[in-house]
């Protein structure tokens, strides 16, 4: 029983972090039909920056997200304005090509500057745990989860309570309707892309503590994140949250009762099973072909 409880709680903790990482991906897809496969590379880039900051200044890696988040927001904005904007209106497959190129570029730069070795930020609490009764919760997981939930909450508030958020949601729900009320398509898309990138600021900083990484780790991460948003429904934020929790639980439960090696497989089996019955994912809506007037 304790074992099960421990696995479930850990799964939820990890799932919260996955949810944050996937939120940026699904947001960007929902608003502009861009599948940003560089999101994984963003995470690794941030993890590398975080590791460097921690190593050289001693700043807590998770707290470093107060630096990496605005950094990624700015970087996302500039990337959109200079590179991504050029494929506006193209099919999503075009965005896969472009952002894959971006991911390879980031990987290459990291290889050259940081070297092709595993790294991991190991703050003082790295191997400590909170004990609640007979359950042990690694401190890093708990801090990471708390940070992720705070940022997801902030993202929710931005999207639902601010005009920027309304503009972003309006563009996602009905682009021509948004144009009719004066929402600028390009500036809104740039903000959405920047917000999406900024989630990898916190996500990457958390990653640097929770998982060892090296430049090519982004392949692992992007496939996980894509799995999550396909399961949840492309473009749906609640879907990303549920998909992420399912992945977290699948991992910890399989690791507890089977072997860690099977964890990812179990997750993909779940995805396949869900897609058989709901091709649009758990929370996805089918694209409305009739939306074009």
């Amino acid at each position, binding site marked *: 029983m304790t074992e099960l409880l421990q696995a479930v709680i850990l799964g939820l903790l990890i799932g919260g972090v996955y949810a944050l990482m996937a939120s940026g991906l699904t947001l960007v897809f929902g608003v502009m039909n861009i599948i940003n496969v560089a999101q994984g590379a963003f995470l690794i880039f941030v993890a590398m920056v975080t590791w460097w900051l921690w190593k050289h200044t001693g700043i807590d890696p998770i707290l470093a997200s107060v630096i990496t988040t605005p950094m990624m927001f700015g970087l996302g904005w500039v990337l959109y304005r200079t590179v991504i904007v050029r494929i506006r209106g193209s099919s999503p497959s075009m965005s896969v090509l472009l952002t894959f190129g971006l991911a390879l570029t980031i990987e290459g730069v990291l290889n050259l500057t940081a070297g092709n070795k595993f790294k991991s930020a190991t703050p003082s609490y790295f191997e400590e745990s909170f004990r609640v009764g007979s359950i042990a919760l690694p401190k890093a997981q708990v801090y990471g989860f708390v940070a992720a939930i705070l940022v997801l909450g902030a993202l929710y508030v931005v999207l639902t309570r601010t*005009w920027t958020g*309304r*503009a972003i*949601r*309006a563009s996602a*729900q*009905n682009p*021509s*309707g*948004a*144009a*009719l*009320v*004066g*929402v*600028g398509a390009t500036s809104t898309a740039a903000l959405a892309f920047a917000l999406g990138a900024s989630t990898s600021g916190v996500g990457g900083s958390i990653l640097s503590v929770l998982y060892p990484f090296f430049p090519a780790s982004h392949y692992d991460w992007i496939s996980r994140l894509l799995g999550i948003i396909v399961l949840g429904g492309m473009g749906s934020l609640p879907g990303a949250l549920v998909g992420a929790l399912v992945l977290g639980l699948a991992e910890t439960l399989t690791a507890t009762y089977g072997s860690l090696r099977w964890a990812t497989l179990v997750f993909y089996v779940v995805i396949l099973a869900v897609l058989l019955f709901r091709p649009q994912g758990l929370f996805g809506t089918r694209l409305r072909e*009739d*939306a074009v*007037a």
Partner: protein
Amino acid sequence: MLELTGVVAGYGGGAVLQGVDLVCDEGTITCVVGPNGAGKSTVLRVVSGLLTPSEGTVMMGDIQLSGQSAAAILRAGVTQVPQSQALFPHMSVRENVLMGGFLIRRDKKLLMSRLEQVQQLVPLVADRAAQHGGNLSGGQRRMVEIARCLMLDPKVLLLDEPSLGLDPRSLAAVAELINRLHGDGVTVLLVEQNVRLGLGLATHGVVMEGGKVRLTGSATEVMNHPEIATLYLGGTSATTKAADAVPHDSAGAPSQ
């Protein structure tokens, strides 16, 4: 008030509008009728700036609208209800209407007083405030779409087939709302397939066909013009069928 001169526009593959001239005087309701594909919606898109004309000009008084961004044209006081799907389906009615004031969002006081006015004019906005745009009936959706357009207190209101898919009761409500706006001095440019309804509401009528204006005049003149019946023979399959099935003199009122 609104003047189109020699407007040529299209969607990349040849001109849909082939030199459209059109004048709407201040405070009038002008109804554009014509068969499907005549370019009626395209005229409205050119005026609202969703489409930039390749030739010709659109003027509102002394202000040139053509060539300006859609947001600039909104700011100048021209708002549009498109033919279909204007609302944000996962936003509440209140939020949908508030989005109509996106351009005045920084002036919170103005925004809220406009919302108040719009709620007076369209009570549905307050009654269904929390309901999602996607869960409204066709008639309710139209009312909310029009309400949203009123948030900017427009000088010119563009309406694309407001009767589309509405039951008679919603139709009456929409017609009444248009009449009230007319009473408030708003200039209305309206596209209608339902010719009798559209011209019945309007002060002026315009007949379009094949991307050109064929006929203009007062609404009654256009309604009673012998040519309008013949023009409608070339309309949609639905109109053609209706026209085939009924005697010549009633072909002017193909009902939806």
